[in-house]
């Protein structure tokens, strides 16, 4: 099965773009995902991103679990803020009466420290906007890594005159994170056969029971770091200037994508800040 966040070669239009065009393309999605909150904008944006990634032949299956966990995590994390957003002034675009409709009253207005808390239509809208923010962010990063090879990333970082340790750490992380995930699975299996289990209702015990997994994986990573450092040095990494393997030669499609997306991003940002476009 394909590993998440890994480059895969396919001869697609997205893969063929220069690293700069890809950076602009996926960077625009990242910016918009961060700036816009309105689901009415986010959902079409997500659909466009989805189509783009499907065209780039990115497998979605490895990301299902990650997207579900991340969505739940942000919703749980933001639920505290959401129920306190009972003041309709927080909402600039949506109808103030509509967002104030109460589904469930949680705390009275005179409640110490917190004040009033309620589940309103506005709170639900606010909560929904967060998974719609985190999903495009994850998919955008995944898409960038799926279509951009390590040598392209190294070439870009070298052009940006990033220091050697930064380039080294980036490449090692991108290459070996899937290996560590695989190793974790193997260790978990090995310990299960020794009677190890995570099942307990005691949260402190649950944490201590991670030791049989964490100790071997830490040892393995420490051992691996030395070998990876040696492997890289052994192949003259850090000797001096490096041949730029990625092509930075812009074609027509690169100009269209780069200029077009840049203009759209600037207009989108202006609209967001000047006219609250994309706000709740």
């Amino acid at each position, binding site marked *: 099965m394909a590993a998440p966040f890994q480059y895969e070669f396919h001869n697609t239009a997205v893969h063929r773009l220069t690293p700069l065009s890809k950076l602009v393309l996926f960077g625009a999605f990242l910016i918009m995902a961060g700036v816009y909150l309105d689901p009415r904008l986010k959902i079409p944006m997500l659909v466009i991103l989805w189509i783009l990634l499907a065209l780039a032949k990115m497998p979605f299956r490895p990301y299902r679990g990650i997207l579900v966990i991340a969505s739940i995590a942000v919703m749980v994390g933001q639920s505290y803020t959401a129920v306190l957003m009972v003041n309709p002034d927080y909402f600039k675009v949506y109808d103030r009466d509509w967002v104030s409709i109460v589904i469930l009253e949680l705390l009275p207005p005179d409640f110490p420290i917190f004040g009033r808390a309620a589940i309103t239509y506005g709170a639900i809208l606010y909560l929904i906007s967060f998974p719609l923010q985190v999903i495009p962010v994850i998919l955008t990063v995944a898409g960038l890594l799926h279509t951009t090879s390590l040598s392209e990333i190294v070439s870009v970082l070298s052009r940006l005159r990033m220091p050697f340790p930064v380039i080294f750490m980036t490449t090692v992380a991108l290459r070996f994170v*899937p290996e560590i995930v695989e190793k974790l699975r193997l260790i978990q299996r090995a310990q299960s056969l020794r*009677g190890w*289990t995570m099942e307990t209702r005691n949260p402190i015990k649950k944490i201590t029971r991670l030791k049989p997994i964490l100790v071997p994986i830490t*040892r393995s990573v420490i051992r691996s770091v030395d070998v990876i450092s040696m492997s890289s040095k*052994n*192949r*003259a990494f*850090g000797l001096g200037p490096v*041949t730029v393997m990625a092509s930075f030669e812009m074609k027509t499609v690169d100009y269209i994508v780069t200029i077009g997306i840049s203009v759209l991003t600037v207009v989108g940002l202006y609209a967001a800040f000047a006219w609250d476009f994309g706000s709740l």
Partner: protein
Amino acid sequence: MSNPEIIVRHLNFTYLRAPQPVLKDIHFEIEAGTVTAIVGQVGAGKSTLLKMLNGLIPSIIPGQVEGDIIVAGQEVRGKDPAFMAQFINLVFDDPVLQIVQLTAEEDVAFGPANLNLPREEVWKRVFRALERVDLKGFEKRNPRSMSGGEQQLLALAGILAMRPRIIGLDEPIAMLDPLGKARVLQAIREMKESQGATILIAESGTDIEAICEFADHMILMDKGRILDRGKPGELFARRQIVQESKLKVPQVTRVAWNLTPSSVSPEVPVTLEGGRRWLSSLLESAKSKSAIQASLSARETPVISAVRPKEEPAIEIKNLHHVFPGDPPVHALKGINLTFSKGDFVALLGQNGSGKTTLAFHLVGAEKPTNKDASIMVNGVDVRKSPLSQVVRQINYLFQNPANQLFCQTFGQEVTFGPQALGSSPAEAMERGREALRKVGLEHLWDYYTLSVAKSLETLLSLASVLAMNPQVLIADEPTGGLDYATGEKVMEILLDLNRQGRTVIVITHDMELAAKYCRRVVVLRRGEVWMDGTPKEVFGQPERLSQTRLSPPQVTLLAQSLASYGFPQDVMSTEEFVSLAQSSQQTRS
């Protein structure tokens, strides 16, 4: 020496905070364009020496150095390994950790790009190197999707593309299956013939037979010192030194040792072809054939497993299928039907990807069949329906990499973890732990710290931690992998001892000599199906069928098969058996 490419003078090295030096007064020269094997047990100092030749030690792993190293005319001390990489490159044993890019072509390009060669030149070298290691067509493949052998070939291609003057190979085939080993060895052979590079190979003994096939010289190391050196045939002729080093000896050499008086021959055969020629001349006698044939009837089974398996089944597998999802899905097991008797000692053979580990994981409940009508019973326990905690009381698994299982501070804690996790009281767990450590000969290390112990100790401790759970069936996945010959033999003797006590033992291995020597039954898997199943003699005695799995019988079996015209049978399993046949022939002649 007229043209030394490597000069090492009075080299001593001590790792930082280590109590004693790991290399002691190492002194040698290596001529350009030759293949030198540095052999010796694990811990002899071979890998350290190789890594010092390009400055990785002490640059990345620090320590105190005395003496001189001159490589390709460069004084290595004080030089950055990245600078030395222009002259000497190493290939390590673990293929995974030396591949740093996400497609094959980019990984091969990594080295030449770091040398700042023109882009066109880099791509030219990339395609040439991939072609030379037979990986043409793999350019865009993610290395993760490649087999261990292919990954090691890719690592080799990455080095070839840098076109160094010297290539050091640190146990290059230790972690590969037989097919992977054959492909890598073939690539090294071609490299020797066409590249003209100086090649050094560090080898701890498991693959000594393969290395002897093309090494021009050998340096025998033990405990940080050079014990002896010379041509392989000359070095192995000095048998006392070799025996003292506990190095694995090629089977043809052991045959020669047994058939000739000690210390009289200046050279002994070390390769299959050399052995065949040597024995042919020895057996040139009209009466030989009849003598050997006469002795055939008196042959005893070479299997040294002490107990005969009972009729009662320990494991029954019926119609086991497993399909891994993916694009396309992988049908890893295709209707496996097998029964293992109680007290059986079985070798599970096959190339990587043949389904051995997947099958073994099903037996311990770590994988579930993907077809509903499959059935796996272990000592009456339905593995498919029972919880893992119940299954592991009957059957357990010794992982290939013991480091995956060890996490406690001391040996004592490690061996008591399993029994306690299964509900034993601390006192009972301690008793079982002590007994398990005693079985592997480590009872004196109860309070010893597990951190940074040698691989051999890790394997024995891991075995003890599994034995403490008292399983009736034990599956050992490559139990001798990465160990030197002497420790590997020790592990196998422990497993044999367990078998003698009535336990069923299944060994997943790529070591044919080991399978022939210890196992009563051999099961060969091929593409998820049982391809061969029988005694070692039955399986290894069918070279044509076996060759379709790209497996090869032990060297001594091949030797006997190559001497078929002298009446040698096809199914000779051990050097002892071969020697007794040859001696009968000699006695008849005299």
